[in-house]
């Protein structure tokens, strides 16, 4: 498989809470490469996929083709009740426009810098300036927006059902996503 697979430690310890809270992991934890995808990234991926595949489902239905398997996919995958599955899709549909608005604002900043620095002769050693504060603020807003949507989802599902859902989501993301190690990825 293409994703990284390592042995797991499933251990009972109050110390593990420290890791969960994001404080420095112990050397052993680092050696296990246990760091997880940030929560807002995981939900960002999920919300986007939900909206895109719902769009696919609508298109299939418009063509008179079966789409039930797409509409119930998260219900089965994350063992959700029909109500919780609908909540997930509704929250994703409500959240994505907010995220898209932030993405567009960020894109205009990024685009301006790239067009300024690409294909134009510059003096020796010139470099693109660090990302402007406004871009970093948008980044923070995106994270807050995702977290706010997640909170809304938790409120709709209830704490118990949400905790079980989130555990399954983490497993799903761990299996389906991959991050390139920065220093070793150049070729």
């Amino acid at each position: 498989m293409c994703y990284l697979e390592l042995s797991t430690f499933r251990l009972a310890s109050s110390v593990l809470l420290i890791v969960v809270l994001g404080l420095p992991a112990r050397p052993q934890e680092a050696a296990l490469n246990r760091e997880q995808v940030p929560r807002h990234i995981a939900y960002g991926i999920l919300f986007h996929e939900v909206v895109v595949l719902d769009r696919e489902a609508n298109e299939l239905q418009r063509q008179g083709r079966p789409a039930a398997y797409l509409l119930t996919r998260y219900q089965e995958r994350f063992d959700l009740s029909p109500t919780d599955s609908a909540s997930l899709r509704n929250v994703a549909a409500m959240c994505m426009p907010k995220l898209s608005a932030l993405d567009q604002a960020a894109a205009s900043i990024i685009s301006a810098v790239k067009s300024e620095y690409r294909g134009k002769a510059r003096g020796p050693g010139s470099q693109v300036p660090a990302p402007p504060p406004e871009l970093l603020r948008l980044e923070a807003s995106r994270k807050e927006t995702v977290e706010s949507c997640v909170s809304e989802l938790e409120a709709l599902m209830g704490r118990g059902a949400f905790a079980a859902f989130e555990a399954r989501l983490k497993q799903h993301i761990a299996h389906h996503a991959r991050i390139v190690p920065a220093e070793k990825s150049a070729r």
Partner: protein
Amino acid sequence: MRALLVTLIASGCLRGQNIYFYSDLQYDASSGNASMYAQTGADYSSQYYYDVFVYMQLNVFPEGSSQYITCQRSASNGNADAYVSCSVNVGTGTLDLELISSHEITATYYTYQFDPYCDWSCYYWHDAFRMSFLGISGEVWESNQSYFAPGPPATPVPQRQTATGQIVRRRSNRACNFPASESSLFWQWSTWYPYAAGFVGLLQGGPSFTGRTVTEELTQLLGDTCWHQGSPYAPMYIPYSSWGTWTVGTLIGENGMVIGPSYNNYGLDFVGFTDATQIGYYQQRLRAGYYPAGQCGLVYQQHMYMDGCGGLKQKYWIQGLEMYIRPYQVEAKRSSVSATR
């Protein structure tokens, strides 16, 4: 084994960057519909320096007829995530599906050819997009200091550095067997956590389950009975983040190294405690008679699942996980097999 996603932390100046590859394949064996989605994602701080690209294709292997490729899609984006999706009907006959997605992040920069009659030694490497993020630093090569490129008549020549990755997902509607039962075998104690026992899961009811994915879900039956009011430690528990995933057929040690092939077995699954000091604290209390039962610990129920070939994963077994601290001993128990030290 566990599939882990590693947060990308750039060395040096770029903090908090996240670049990720993701793909997903849905297949409904009853209707023959397949839907797929692939994304190359980057946060704004990464998009600022890099462009992202994604490509996917679905390889269809129908039994008895020729392989074909469908759902070839690609997308690139300089200012946002790149994603592709596709839905297609591949029929309901026996078949195997393989989704291949390629993901790239690219930094674009320019070399300046300031002498048209020179070759490699006459280029100036303009590192406008900080290649250090990809592990490459910009360099300046000049053949003659009297020429100071860039600038007319120097010609910018675009160069690209790309980090790439590929993800393959497979689905099939072939008959899919599941284990009838499972037993455990104690393998070894952890070298990092002296009170964590590594177990091997032995699957019964084959034929072969090699390559299949085993996952677990845990239910706590008995909370931390060692904990007491005033304890310097928080109650122990197993967090969701520690739920495990393994691939049948290969045993992997705690350092991620392959121990060896093992037919219809998987592991290691570590059960136990991480903090020896905490164990020592509770053992002192046990020896002082604070616990009438003479032991304390935690009990979980371990629900075992296996991937369903082309369909959904299926629960095939339930067993107990028990972790006890005694006055002079620690026990880790998986199903009916225990390890003590």
